[in-house]
């Protein structure tokens, strides 16, 4: 995939920014002040920059999860739930690892997180492959189930010792990822995310599985005709996708929060859809795309202080970017017959629900 493929993304970002700027003008807010506030909050100081990277980290994990699934035309809307499943698994065993040596404890925590997310993804994969249930519906339902299970866990079985606050006990010190650049919260999670984006790229474009996945995503009919094992690929993909998101949740627990609480995810799994679409589903482009959205998130508070406009404005930008990209893609897709993000071909096993 060439850099040129990312041009529509840049155009969409500019267009979205323009739309928002015009809206701000109409509201009587100075767009330049909002933009300066945003930039300042995201990149204004070394600490701001590292915080942007910290905010980008879960977005990379979830963005990779979304990209992997979308490449196979599996519309995994469930990265949020998978991330929470991973976080709950990691936050659940975290306090019990006190006697474990540090590297082992951290690895165990991350592994358990990936397994938790993977299990959550497997449910959707199994339902899709074996019971013909649309992954769109199942992943949405699993998102809300995961959120409620997390809420129950921090009020019930995992609640901290004093039972006063709805949050879990802190994970053991040995299971915490060190912050090498304190006071900055920058941690190895970002590096892990970057390495995984490289691995995801190799998986997608250089491995036999990735080939099968992309083939099935583009033409289930041709893939079936040539004997590619669609059922296995669907389940494997959603497990891997879930594991990536779950790993993101575990990283968040081990490096940043050290514990679980309600509303653990501010909607990373949904934001990740924008991240993945802007990256045109290319794993390598996910990193910069996630950093961009991380910067938006990080700068939002500063923007709110500087320009008096609500921080959730960045959600508007995200949504506009997705919508504009969809429209671009549809126009291009119609010219070429069909595009990955434009309507499914009638014969594909896709959505149909």
């Amino acid at each position, binding site marked *: 995939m060439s850099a040129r493929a990312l041009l529509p993304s840049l155009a969409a970002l500019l267009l979205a920014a323009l739309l928002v700027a015009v809206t701000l003008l109409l509201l009587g807010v100075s767009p330049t002040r909002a933009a300066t506030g945003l930039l300042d909050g995201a990149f204004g100081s070394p600490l701001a920059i590292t915080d942007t990277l910290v905010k980008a980290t879960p977005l990379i994990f979830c963005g990779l999860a979304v990209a992997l699934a979308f490449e196979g035309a599996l519309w995994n809307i469930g990265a949020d739930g998978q991330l929470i499943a991973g976080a709950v698994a990691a936050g659940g065993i975290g306090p019990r690892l006190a006697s474990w040596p540090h590297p082992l404890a951290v690895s165990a925590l991350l592994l358990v997180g990936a397994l938790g997310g993977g299990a959550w993804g497997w449910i959707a994969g199994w339902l899709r492959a074996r019971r013909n249930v649309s992954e769109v519906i199942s992943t949405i339902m699993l998102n809300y189930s995961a959120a409620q299970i997390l809420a129950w866990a921090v009020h019930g079985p995992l609640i901290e010792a004093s039972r006063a606050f709805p949050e879990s006990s802190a994970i053991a010190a040995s299971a915490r990822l060190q912050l090498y650049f304190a006071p900055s919260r920058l941690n190895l999670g970002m590096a892990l995310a970057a390495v995984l984006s490289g691995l995801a790229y190799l998986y997608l474009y250089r*491995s036999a599985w990735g080939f099968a996945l*992309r083939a099935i995503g583009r033409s289930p009919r041709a893939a079936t*005709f040539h004997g590619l094992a669609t059922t296995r690929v669907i389940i494997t993909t959603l497990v891997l996708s879930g594991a990536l998101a779950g790993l993101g949740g575990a990283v968040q627990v081990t490096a940043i929060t050290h514990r679980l609480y309600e509303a653990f995810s501010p909607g990373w799994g949904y934001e990740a859809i924008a991240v993945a679409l802007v990256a045109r589903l290319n794993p390598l482009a996910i990193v910069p795309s996630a950093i961009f959205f991380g910067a938006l998130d990080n700068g939002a508070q500063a923007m709110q202080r500087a320009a008096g406009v609500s921080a959730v404005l960045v959600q508007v930008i995200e949504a506009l970017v997705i919508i504009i990209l969809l429209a671009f893609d549809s126009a291009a897709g119609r010219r070429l017959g069909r595009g990955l993000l434009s309507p499914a071909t009638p014969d594909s096993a896709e959505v149909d629900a």
Partner: protein
Amino acid sequence: MLVARGICKRFGRTVALDRVDFHAAPGEIHALIGENGAGKSTLVSILAGRLAPDAGTITGADGPLRITPGTAHGVAAVFQAPLLFEQMSWEENLALGGFRRSTRLRPEALAAAARAAHDLGFALPVPGRRVADLAVGERVRLAILRALSFAPRVLLLDEPTGALAPAEVEQFLDHLGRLRRDGRAVVLVTHRLGEALTVADRITVLRRGRKVAEVPAAATNERDLATLMVGELPPPLAASTYEGAPAVLLSLADLMLEKDGRRLLDGVTMEVRRGEIVGVAGVEGNGQDALIAILAGLAAPTAGRLLTRGALALIPQDRDLDGLILEMPLWENLLLLEPLRRRFAPRYWLRRRDAVEFCRALLARYAIRAGGPHDPAAALSGGNRQRLAVARALATQPEIVVAHDIARGLDLAATRELHRQLRQYAESGRAVLLLSSDLEEIFQLCSRSYLMSRGRLRPLGPADRQAGRFGLMLSGAQG
């Protein structure tokens, strides 16, 4: 009254209709005949407003028309694959027709339907049954009833009788005569010449997208029509130059395939030997897809034996939907074929560089016009796509190549080139099985051939090579 003049329609680079004139006059049954792919269905779709012509005009009784889908112009159609709502009951399907314009669905609509069905000699299905559960014949009857419910001035019928029982056909044709007396225009697409001659007043023959004749039914006969449909047959080819031992590479013995209670293949027996190109002629939908599914390993025969000696490679009929993935680069399209996948992705990783080099060499050897191995298949013309599909199949040096309708939509030069390649391949001591509905192709290429009809195969002897007789057989008048 509907007059179409100079209708042209292309699909990509394929010319489906080339300056065709056609008209449907009140009180007249106009039969439209031709082989598969002659353009009959495309013309019907244009007259019904489902497709827009690239050029040409359509004029109605009140002047030029821009036909849109629906029945507003007094045109109703029954298409070859009837557009029915599978998950609804047959009554609901009828109610979507023109029986009764009421807000509420009432039993009266059913009474009207029952009367109409009685007129046609049709029995109505069991009340409340879903269309998906109806037999093929019942579905066609339903579609015909629904079309008639609009009381159309022009009725277009695309192969309506194929799925009807003989007694029903007779009654149905009888009813068409009544519609004619009512002053309606009926267009009957068929490949059964006998039917066209019995019922039609006027017959138009299409061949390869062109109108080759329009004659009053009274002034022609089956033999002349068959010759018009099929055209002059090419002289038989010189015998294969292969001189090795004619070992059997592919053998089918009494192959049966049943699905949903329908017999798709009925005792198919044949052998394909080294050095041979064996043809299977026949109108589409007579079991060809079932045979391909078995050969591709996508379906298991209900009974019978399939033996292959050596690898088998398939060139599917629909290169854009089954054969290739248009958004993927050419080199990755090669990997769709299992032997190439094993070669270039033996374990976990793709041998990318090798595959790309291999692709480059293949493009050069088969003169496929493409920018390079990284071009998406969508960037290729239809002919070059087909060349790629053929090159991919031959590249693995399989003992048996099965090619299904490979010349569809290609121009003459591209077709010849493909034929030359297949011929050469067979003569190198391999075997080719060619399924085609194009007679010229079968005769041009094959050393032996069979006719496939309703799931059965019957060998074609030298005596069948006579154009007229063969055309008649294809048309279902005999055999």
